[in-house]
């Protein structure tokens, strides 16, 4: 399998994007958003940054289908963990003792 050569310019742009994301996280921390939005904003920025790292620094964007399958499996398993854990939190208050 031939190795994809990534231009240094791409790495630099991703690095700057990650730095910008970090700055945005710091700025967002000074604002108190309504409801659960504090966590939503912070997690959204974090997910975008992680995606950039996976796609470019880990070369997944230039990799074959098997690598995509591996990444997809990891995300799917993460989804299982979240979904079944949240099934507990969402339904805890449903049951009202007689």
């Amino acid at each position, binding site marked *: 399998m031939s190795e994809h050569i990534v231009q240094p310019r791409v790495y630099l742009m991703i690095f700057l994007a990650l730095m910008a994301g970090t700055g945005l996280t710091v700025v967002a921390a000074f604002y108190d958003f309504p409801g659960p939005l504090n966590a939503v904003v912070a997690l959204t920025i974090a997910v975008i940054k992680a995606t950039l790292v996976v796609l470019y620094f880990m070369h997944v964007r230039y990799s074959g289908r098997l690598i995509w399958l591996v990444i997809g*499996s*990891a995300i799917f*398993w993460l989804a*299982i*963990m979240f979904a*079944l*854990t949240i*099934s*507990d*939190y*969402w*339904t*805890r208050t*449903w*049951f009202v003792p007689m």
Partner: protein
Amino acid sequence: MEEFEIPKQPGSNYLNAEYGLKSWLLTKDHKRIALLYLGAISFFFFIGSLYAMAIRLELLTPQGDLMQSSTYNKTFTQHGIIMVFFFLIPSIPATLGNFLIPMMIGAKDLAFPRINLLSWYIYMIGGVITIYALLAGGVDTGWTFYVPYSTTFSNSYVIATGLGIFINGFSSILTGLNFIVTIHTMRAPGMTWFRMPLFVWAHYATSLIMILGTPVVAITILLVALERLAHIGIFDPAAGGDPVLFQHLFWFYSHPAVYIMVLPAMGVVSELIANFSRKNIFGYKFVAFSSLAIAVLGFLVWGHHLFVASQSVYAGMIFSFLSFTVAIPSAIKVFNWTATLYKGSISYDTPMLYGLGFIGLFTIGGLTGMFLASLATDVHLSDTYFVVAHFHYIMVGGTLLAYLGGLHYWWPKISGRMYPEGWGRFSALIVFVGFNLTFSPQFLLGYMGMPRRYHTYPAELVSWQVLHVLSTAGASILGVGLMIPLVYLAWSLRYGRIAEANPWHLPGLEWQTASPPPTENFLTTPIVTHEAYEFAPPEHKEVVGKFERQQPAET
């Protein structure tokens, strides 16, 4: 059955190819690394067994006359941590898996030999840190590290122990990674997926769990350390956290970890049952895919550990249902093994005795798990000795028996010597009797209400003491049964009969090379032309229902 031409014993084998400590500590040979693991996990098993002895001695009488409650807390915690993380999880994969997977698929080594050696060093570093924590003062949280006790109240070495387990986890991940890449890319010509031995399929499924689950427990332990050091508030309700979240994260790994322990054991048993019945395994594809099904479904059931931990009853219902689904692939395996025995040419050599013992004990362990997966009965049985008995039937009756069976079965290949068969059978029976006497009384104790993790019980409950005495007596017998193989296997290294290349006369690739094998496993790359357990000539093929056995390829 096609016979491979077995090469003559070469001038050197993997054991005498190089000499000196350095040749072992810097080896990249998967077989030598397997032996490094064998030595290390045997040491940890010995340490864990000492704690077990102390527990059983303490429970001999109702009073706490051997140790204080705080010491007892540390004793059962350290027994669990050593046995789970440093013996059971690496036991079969890191020793037998490491040794055999390349040989079974006709490869010269694993895909990443250096990473294989690295995994052993990581395991040792994690082990040394954990041993340090135990010697420095120990840890008393239970092997489960439940919060808030572990984060807020425990005055023991939680972080040091956690660090040892955290580091050890990477060893597991690297082993899993190595197996997956090896199985995908290094199979010999003709070794198709459905010609692979079921031992390899089981390790493939195990490796998936290792890679997908282990990072979660690593992060969870890290969060416990951060909570303890910096009080970040993930698990503390006062800071907006939730202690039950710890249990979700911990069991997301630690329930599948049970399958890390038992799937390789099932792989060993598939080999033993088919080969010592001299029959192709009944329903090869069902047994192979049931390993993958167990690996996947095993990730969906962790909530049954939380039925009485304030988890939502609705989530409890989902987890209860999902827990029952794991019984299906497990039952497929048990039924297929027993169907394999039917009309087989069974020989009761030591490995087969362990294999048959596994089937019975795993079945009891699995079925009692159904009691615990049921919401209503679990309320009564949770945190009692019933649970202790149940998981020891899986972990000891299952994994340990299969490990011993596998060790005997492949001992001629590993060491080049035969073990004494009479002593082997004798000790297998002693282990079986000792194990059952140890743990079957604990089902009754649990049902009668004896809680786990207590070092005293009411003196007026005579029946409880009788059962505890039986259990301790059984543990003594089990201990003797485990010491006997230690002695005769060590004896056989020097005095055992020289093993042939294929002492059991089997078709598996690992038997088609010298005993012990050369460093490169095979002098010429094997070409595989038949199924994994090809015993019957074509005119004796079985047709069962609509299923017809595949005809062997023309050779």
